[in-house]
């Protein structure tokens, strides 16, 4: 026997103190009475008592000592050690997407946790528990923990993941634990089936009584018509358990009532296709398809497609007296929302993603959005460049930058002339003095003629230091179109390249110009605030559903982008059969020393009983007075 907290025995100091108090305090009290006759006579009427009853005289002291002793022992917590009675357990808990499958109000994951809890509770105290969790990531949640309550508490904190992940990494970890202690009992809690296992106890929590229908990712094809578009939405439905009839509903954007519905007969394990044909769709942000049937795994009962073009759309204000060339170039580059105003109408408008000033300089820079200056005729505070007058361009004076800077190379990527170093004829250019670091794409006589950078407020800035109308050969060349395209991408790069992902994939979010901070809200409401000091934010999608990506811009506006993360195909099947799960090695018997410490409660009860008995004794004595 050992003591968990030997310092608890310090309470035994109370025993000699009690005895001392008893000796000091419990002296005989002298009292003169009328006559001792009756008292002496009472001796004849005293019942004969057993010798042990002599202790009755000090019953008060005995009870107090017992209470102190039992309380001290309870504090010290005596522990009996039973050799090799405790086990070493290693649990591998599958927390992938399919473990969300729910039957009878309980998910497979909860059932798995319940099984582990049961094993821990029924094991001998002193056992050691290790939990390897395969969820959003494979991690060892706890390692050789002997405290049952602590282990269960950490187990309870675990939440099921949504990703598709194989158990190989976790299995390697379990093998390592087994190698370090061959008495380790390995438990695998999963919904997968295995053809064979060795040295492992597989607890299969698959429950297949509930139906399980699954919607595949949807495909959306947009065909432009004269004034709108024709949309074709198609996909497949799979039933993994039983045959059944389902009703597929189609929604656009935030519609609460189905835009269209399609009844579908689904045969088990055979994909059934559906198609929606929708005419006269002007524009849409999202297409959502749902199953009208509740089943065991709800994660794959909905499929959402977010229109990537809609998500990345931007508005452009072109301030020009003769906008023909530039407007054509912008529209050709895919900028659909271009507003053109005369310079005289410019009053510091806001709310645009790009301001293009052609041969016109505003008194102040716009408060929001990127800025393009075309043929600037003066400087403007905060633009980081100065106007130094118009210069006659020498014949064939235009030259592309040969800088190896990656930014420059990206902007010149795909420009035919850049590779061939073709020179174009210009009449005039504007000589600019650069006050900050700019990426120079084109020069004329060594002077920067097309360069990109940022304003003092951080907005992206592109300067075309020439008059497009005097540079027809260049403007009409393929080079210019590609350059505008690249510059538009540079000016407001798409926030996301695509909007459809599979859970577990990494989302890349471009930190666009003017974005000061970002908030990503997961389908379960989990918030993340990524660092926006990097050009691209990478974020792993660990949940199934729609993610909200909110970009907080410098002008106070908020730009919200949605992407949809769907359940991996492998996790949609209720019980996938895998090959072998083997822990290699020869298991050994024994384990850790078991611990029996339930004496704690016994001693607490005994201490309370002794204290209670003492109380009753005192009360009785009081009552007899």
């Amino acid at each position, binding site marked *: 026997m050992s003591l968990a907290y030997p310092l608890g025995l310090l309470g035994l100091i109370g025993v000699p103190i009690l005895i001392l108090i008893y000796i000091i305090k419990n002296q005989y009290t002298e009292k003169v009475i009328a*006559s001792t006759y009756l008292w002496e006579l*009472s001796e004849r009427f005293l019942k004969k008592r057993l010798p042990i009853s002599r202790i*009755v005289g000090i019953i008060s002291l005995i009870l107090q000592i017992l209470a102190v002793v039992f309380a001290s022992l309870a504090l010290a917590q005596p522990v009996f050690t039973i050799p090799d009675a405790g086990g070493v357990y290693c649990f591998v808990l599958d927390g992938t997407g399919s473990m969300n499958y729910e039957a009878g109000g309980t998910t497979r994951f909860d059932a798995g946790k319940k099984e582990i809890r049961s094993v821990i509770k029924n094991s001998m105290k002193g056992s050691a528990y290790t939990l390897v969790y395969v969820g959003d990531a494979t991690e060892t949640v706890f390692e050789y923990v002997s405290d049952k309550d602590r282990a269960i508490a950490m187990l309870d904190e675990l939440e099921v993941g949504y990703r598709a992940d194989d158990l190989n990494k976790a299995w390697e970890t379990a093998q390592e634990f087994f190698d370090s202690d061959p008495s380790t009992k390995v438990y695998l809690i999963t919904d997968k089936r295995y053809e064979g296992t060795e040295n492992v106890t597989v607890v299969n929590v698959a429950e297949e009584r509930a139906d399980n229908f699954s919607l595949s990712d949807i495909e959306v094809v947009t065909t432009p018509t004269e004034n709108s578009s024709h949309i074709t939405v198609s996909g497949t439905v799979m039933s993994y358990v039983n045959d059944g009839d389902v009703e597929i509903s189609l929604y656009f954007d935030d519609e609460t009532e189905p835009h269209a519905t399609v009844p579908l007969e689904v045969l088990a394990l055979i994909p059934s296709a559906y198609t929606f044909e929708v005419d006269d769709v002007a524009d849409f942000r999202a297409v959502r398809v749902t199953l009208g049937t509740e089943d065991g795994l709800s994660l794959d009962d909905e499929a959402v497609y977010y229109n990537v073009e809609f998500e990345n759309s931007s508005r452009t204000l072109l301030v020009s007296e003769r906008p023909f060339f530039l407007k054509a170039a912008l529209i050709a580059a895919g900028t659909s929302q271009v507003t053109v105003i005369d310079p005289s109408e410019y009053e510091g408008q806001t709310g645009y993603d790009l301001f293009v000033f052609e041969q016109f300089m505003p008194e102040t820079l716009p408060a929001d959005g990127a800025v393009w200056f075309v043929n600037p005729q003066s400087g403007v505070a905060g633009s980081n460049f100065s106007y130094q007058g118009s210069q006659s361009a020498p014949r064939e004076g235009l030259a592309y930058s040969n800088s190896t800077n990656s930014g420059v190379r990206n902007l010149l990527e795909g420009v035919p002339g850049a590779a061939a170093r073709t020179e174009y004829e210009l009449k005039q250019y504007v000589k600019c003095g650069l006050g900050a670091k700019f990426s120079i794409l084109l020069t004329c006589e060594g002077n920067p003629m097309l360069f990109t950078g940022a304003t003092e407020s951080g907005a992206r800035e592109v300067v075309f230091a020439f008059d497009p109308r005097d540079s027809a050969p260049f403007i009409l060349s393929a080079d210019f179109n590609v350059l505008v395209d690249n510059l538009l991408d540079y000016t407001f790069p798409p926030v996301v390249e695509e909007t459809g992902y599979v859970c577990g994939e990494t989302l890349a979010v471009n930190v666009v110009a003017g974005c000061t901070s970002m908030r990503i809200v997961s389908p379960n409401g989990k918030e993340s605030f990524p660092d926006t000091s990097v050009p691209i934010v990478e974020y792993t999608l660990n949940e199934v559903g729609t993610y909200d990506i909110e970009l907080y811009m410098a002008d106070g506006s908020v730009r919200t982008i949605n992407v949809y993360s769907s359940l991996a195909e492998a996790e949609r099947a209720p019980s996938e059969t895998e090959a072998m799960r083997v822990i290699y090695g020869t298991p050994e018997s024994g384990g850790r020393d078991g611990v029996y410490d339930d004496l704690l409660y016994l001693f607490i009860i005994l201490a309370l009983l002794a204290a209670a008995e003492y109380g009753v004794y005192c009360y009785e004595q009081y009552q007899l*007075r």
Partner: protein
Amino acid sequence: MVVSEAFLEQVELLQTLIKNNLAGRFGGTHQSKTFGSSCEFTDYRDYMPGDDVTKIDWNAFARFEKLYLKLYLDERQVHTRIYIDASKSMKFGKGRKDEQALRLAAVFAYLSVCEMDKVSVYMIRDGHLEEVFVNMLGRESFYNEIGKLDSIEFDGDSKITEAILPSVVGYGDGLSIIISDFLTDEDFEGAIEHLANKRRDILCVQVLAREELSPRTRGKMHLIDSEDANHIYRKNITKDIIRAYMAALDYATGRIRNFCLARGGNYMLVSSEESLNGIFFGKLTEMGVLK
């Protein structure tokens, strides 16, 4: 000692019942079983030579031509002797046993003088009998003498038999009252036996304090006898001891009672805090000592 006059006036209504045939002097109020010269007619009997001729009922002779003698009840004056235990043990207890004893003695004495009886009060101390007042007769004497009770010092030991046996107790002439706590292993039974043999009516009044009737002492105690410091009862007073004490109390009181009753006497246990009203109009009348 405080006895209210109002209570004494009430007590006057009571009368002592004497069991034994009285041999006291003439002039009292107690009727003797012998025929005497009182005014109360009781019977006739044939005349015998030598009888007092003044007692012959001449009317009966005229009618029956035979001499009959008229018989009258004899009324005697008795002598009430009150013995007060003046030992030190009587000074204890809430309400004080000694005060209760003196109150009882005073009332008994008053009751006797009201019945035209003689009253003597003695105190017993250390085996001696000391007179407080003797042969007191009449209320005036009572009021003159009763103050002497207050001068009794309760001190020393009590040896009742040793004190009473050598004393003059009279023969068949009244009531002997012993007021004591009887908390002694000394022989008191000899005194009662002696009084009974002297055809005295006996009343033993045992006065005990509440603490003695229901002790509240607990724990480790050295109980020292007030009359003899060498008598020490050293014990841890527990529930069992208290039970044994109560059994001893029952035994002790029962022994006195039985002894008294066996000898035609009466026994009364009173608490030092008990009211005189309850004692005289309750217990004593119920016992038939008074009516």
